């Protein structure tokens, strides 16, 4: 699998177009990695959810896409990083329907359901870091 780049790809998120670019890039990478088309859509959707949060709350940040391999399994890992206001109550933020921006409140819990692994770190005033991975089935 030498043709698959393991170099992390950093995509800045500062506007709508960046979200579309990140999501399209993520889908392409997923298909290249051997994901089925429907999984590619799930990954792309998760990317746009977290990228949307960056734009909504932190105005700017980045999405880092990286091909990972563990115990013979290959997967796509997505990291969403920003230096925004941070999330005071992570438990609430991960609850369906909780939103501080009049959205549907499905971004974080929804992304968690779309991916296999999901972790979030956030510090008020410092920023938020979401890491999620999906494995090729």
């Amino acid at each position, binding site marked *: 699998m030498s043709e698959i780049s393991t170099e992390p790809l950093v995509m800045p998120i500062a506007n*709508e177009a960046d979200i579309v670019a990140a999501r399209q890039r993520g889908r392409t990478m997923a298909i290249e990695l051997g994901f089925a088309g429907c999984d590619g859509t799930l990954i792309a*959707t998760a990317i746009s*959810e977290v990228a949307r949060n960056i734009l909504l709350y932190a105005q700017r940040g980045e999405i880092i896409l990286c091909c990972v391999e563990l115990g013979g399994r290959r997967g796509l890992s997505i990291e969403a990083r920003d230096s925004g206001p941070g999330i005071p109550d992570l438990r609430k933020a991960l609850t369906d329907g909780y939103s501080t921006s009049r959205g*549907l409140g*499905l971004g974080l819990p929804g992304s968690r*359901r*779309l991916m296999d692994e999901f972790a979030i770190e956030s510090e008020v005033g410092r920023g938020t870091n979401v890491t999620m991975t999906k494995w090729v089935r």
Partner: protein
Amino acid sequence: MSSPQRPVAPHSYGSQRPPAAVPIGPVGAIGVDEMQLTDEEVARRMSWLEITADDIANLTSIRDVARGYAAEVIEDLYRHFLAFDETRAFFRDEQTLRRVKAMQTEYFLRLTEGNYDREYVRDRLKIGAIHQRIGLDVKWYLGAYNFYLRAVGSRLMRAFQDDPERGRACYFSLKKLVFFDIGLAIEIYLTTIRRQEEAIRELSTPVLQLRAGLLILPIIGVIDPTRARQLTEQLLRSIRANRAKVVVMDITGVPSVDSRVANHLVQTVEAARLMGATVIITGLSAEVAQALVLVGIDLNRIRTVGDLQGGIEEAERSLGYRVSRVEA
């Protein structure tokens, strides 16, 4: 002293595009007047570039020097333009070349004439707009400025051989003003691009009436908040104008549907419902449907039908139409 109606040379670059053929309207063209900056805005930009009264004095002090080498600089510049296919294409014949050189000279001399006021800005914006309109890419445009500065810089230094300090000061003043001009030119390029994007967006969501009371709205491309708003507005307007009862909204051509987009769709459907119209959404792919369910979108309030044909059939049924084949 520039009067408010300072005449501006009839700018028409390139004989291949006579002034009469210049597109007028929202697409492609941008009225310089709508971009006109206020006095405060002009002052603000000047202070960002640190253009002071000294700079203006420097610039006007080299007016005669500039007149001295203007013709040479212009000749150099056009030799450079003609050496590249991409820029040569704009000068088809001798006559065109002569005319644009005359205009270039006018531009050049204006740099050292003082009065860098709103009228000056207007003139500069106009020049930028013309270059944008004839299709000259920004990279050539900026490259030409670089050439300009270099061609002028070396001559300025030569003219101030005995007082290099002074020559340098004048050069820096000129550079500030040139950057002021560049800023204006780029701005008009960007504004035009934005305007075109808006126009394309507007065109990309046609609301079509299929039968009395039945509208079709095929959506192609990315739905961002701006487009979602336009789409909703346009749909609601059409519902009223056509007294529509049923709308079939086809999203086959939407590449990315996430919770935000789904939310926009739900809101559009709700708004249409308040106007008395039912919306049927078609073209939701199996993959997107799966993703939306996983994300947790409640699509209960939305009527969906697999494909456009099915959607139209259902709409017709609910309006009481029966489509039947005429037997021979």
